[in-house]
């Protein structure tokens, strides 16, 4: 029987992996990808609790997170070329 705790644990593991990625990697693209992992861990938790409580507000939140992530990705993708071009500023 699968419980909420399973999902919490999985989400925690993913979140921590994301944190480690942010802290250890120097490539800014990979750092951003690690942030996406963390966001996804949070999304998983939101979906899980939505399912547990039967309230779809969690889904709405995930929807919003996705919108924000998309905006962030678009912005980051534009910023990245500039960071790479000017390595002094991009000394992550």
């Amino acid at each position: 029987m699968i419980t909420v705790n399973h999902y919490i644990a999985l989400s925690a593991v993913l979140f921590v992996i994301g944190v480690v990625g942010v802290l250890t990697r120097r490539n800014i693209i990979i750092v951003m990808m690690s942030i996406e992992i963390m966001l996804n861990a949070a999304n998983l938790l939101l979906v899980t609790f939505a399912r547990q409580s039967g309230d779809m507000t969690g889904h709405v939140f995930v929807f919003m997170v996705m919108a924000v992530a998309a905006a962030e990705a678009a912005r980051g993708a534009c910023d990245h070329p500039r960071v790479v071009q000017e390595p002094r500023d991009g000394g992550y």
Partner: protein
Amino acid sequence: MWGLEHIWWVPILPLIGATINGLVGHLLSKRAVGVVAVGSTGLSFLVALAAFGNILGLAPDQRVYESVLFTWIQAGSFTAEAALQVDPLSAVFLMVVTGVGFLIHVYSVGYMGHEAGYPRYFAYLNLFMFSMLLLILGANFLLMFIGWEGVGLCSYLLIGYYYEKQSASDAGKKAFVMNRIGDFGFLLAIMWIFWTFGSIDYTTVFPVAHDKLALGGLAVTGITLLLFLGATGKSAQIPLYTWLPDAMEGPTPVSALIHAATMVTAGVYMVARCNALFNLAPMTMMIVALIGATTAIFAATMGLYQFDIKRVLAYSTVSQLGYMFLACGVGAYVAAVFHVMTHAFFKACLFLGSGSVIHGMSGEQDMRQMGGLGKKMPMTHATFLISTLAIAGIPPLAGFFSKDEILLSAFLGHTPGHLLYWVLATIAAAVTAFYMFRLYFMTFTGELRAEDHHVRDHVHESPNVMTMPLVILAGLAVVGGFLGLPMIEGGHALKNFLDPVFAQPGHAAGGHDVSVGLELLLMGVSVGMGVLGILTARYYYSVKPEAAVELLNKGGMIKSIYTLMQNKYYVDEIYDALIVKPIVAVSDKGLWRFFDVKVVDGLVNFAATFFMGLGSMFRTAHTGLTRSYAYAMVFGGVFLAGFWLFLSSGK
């Protein structure tokens, strides 16, 4: 009934003309542009004529027709219908506006024939017709206001028609700003009316005005004063009259149509329309009469020593408008409307005549260059003379009847100080006769004084398309007054027609109880004053021109008065010193150099300095290494989560 039911065609037709000429006019031939402009106005005139006939066919107490086109604005309790209303008052104005407008369109075809921007001119002119008709026909204050603004806009556009000319564009701006000051009052009055009555429809507001408002109360006085402020702007009364003489920078037909016959009478129309309110505010009535009488004499004296033919007419317009307001102020609305009508005829004729003269003189407007034109321009001369006699108040021409009725009303009026107004107006009548005949003698008699021989050789009578309107208008100036002919013993045709509009409860709008003898005496006085003015003018400008120069050379009082009058009493300069300069000074020294530079910039700079100082304190924590921030965040997260865990485990 064909006519009244199609009343909405009356404003729409000129709008269609304006749209065609404004959008695709430059692609059309001049002839096509003229056909569109004149045709649309002419059709509009025909519809208006039919509507007028319908109105006449109705019983006198049923002569109000309202046609609701659609609901225009609906917000909360506020409703504004796009509705047109025809009653005797608007019908009279309708006839004047469409009729004179049509004639001036015809005249313009000839006069503007050589101008660049021909379609633009007619688009504006048609747009003006639309706005003016909307102003007259609108069934509520908002619609009137739209027309009111529209005519102001068109006036601005047409004054600045020769926009390459600095003086023309300045004059346009001046007219616009002056009008805006008045419009501001009008707008406030509309808001106040809505606040008081909960509606802006004429049919809702006026019948209940007497019950809702106390006689002479604050509300009604405020509303009417604000309304009158609007009227002074639009109708060029003291203190907002200075734009009208400058407005003569526009083409002459425009001066005739907008700045003599129609738009400037909008203020009179508005006051007459709101007579139910004005009757309740004796103080406002007094002010209206006072301003009217003062303007009449003031503008007349300013017209005395002008040399620009159109400026003389402009001051005469201001003066005549003063008469109309005087009539309104003493409660003689019928006389005011009557004078609007007759004035439209003879003043349009005069302006168009002066346009014809200017046309013949190759654009010369200075009367000192003219003289003896009577022989070379017989048609213009004849029509001009008729109109001049009309404005001087010589029987049996139109001006005599209407002006005399105003003077009679002033003499018999209920307003305090009405005898003073009568004296002022009577003197103004003499002055009017004097300067108008000065104009006439300087222009049409004597010898041609123009120096440029090209101009001398070129003097010619204008084409038929220009003289025909002159003839028609002069004819109207002759017969127009007969509408008020049976004035002795209880009203006349126009009065009977208009009375339903002005017969309000609680106010005696009926005929004056006056003996025939007194009336004849007053007539005699006014005619005598007119004749006196004419004879004086004839002495100084035709019989013995050198006498005037001698008089001036004597110096002293006469010389200084002359200078004062020629400089228009320095009103423009006074306005400049009292209003424009202080505003500029306050903006420059106060708002800019002190408030903006010191206060606003100071605050901004202070904020910047403050946070810069604050930032320099925290700068050490800002390594610029993103990873260190990430570490800080994670440690913070760990700490918070651990703390929360500690708290929840304690439970």
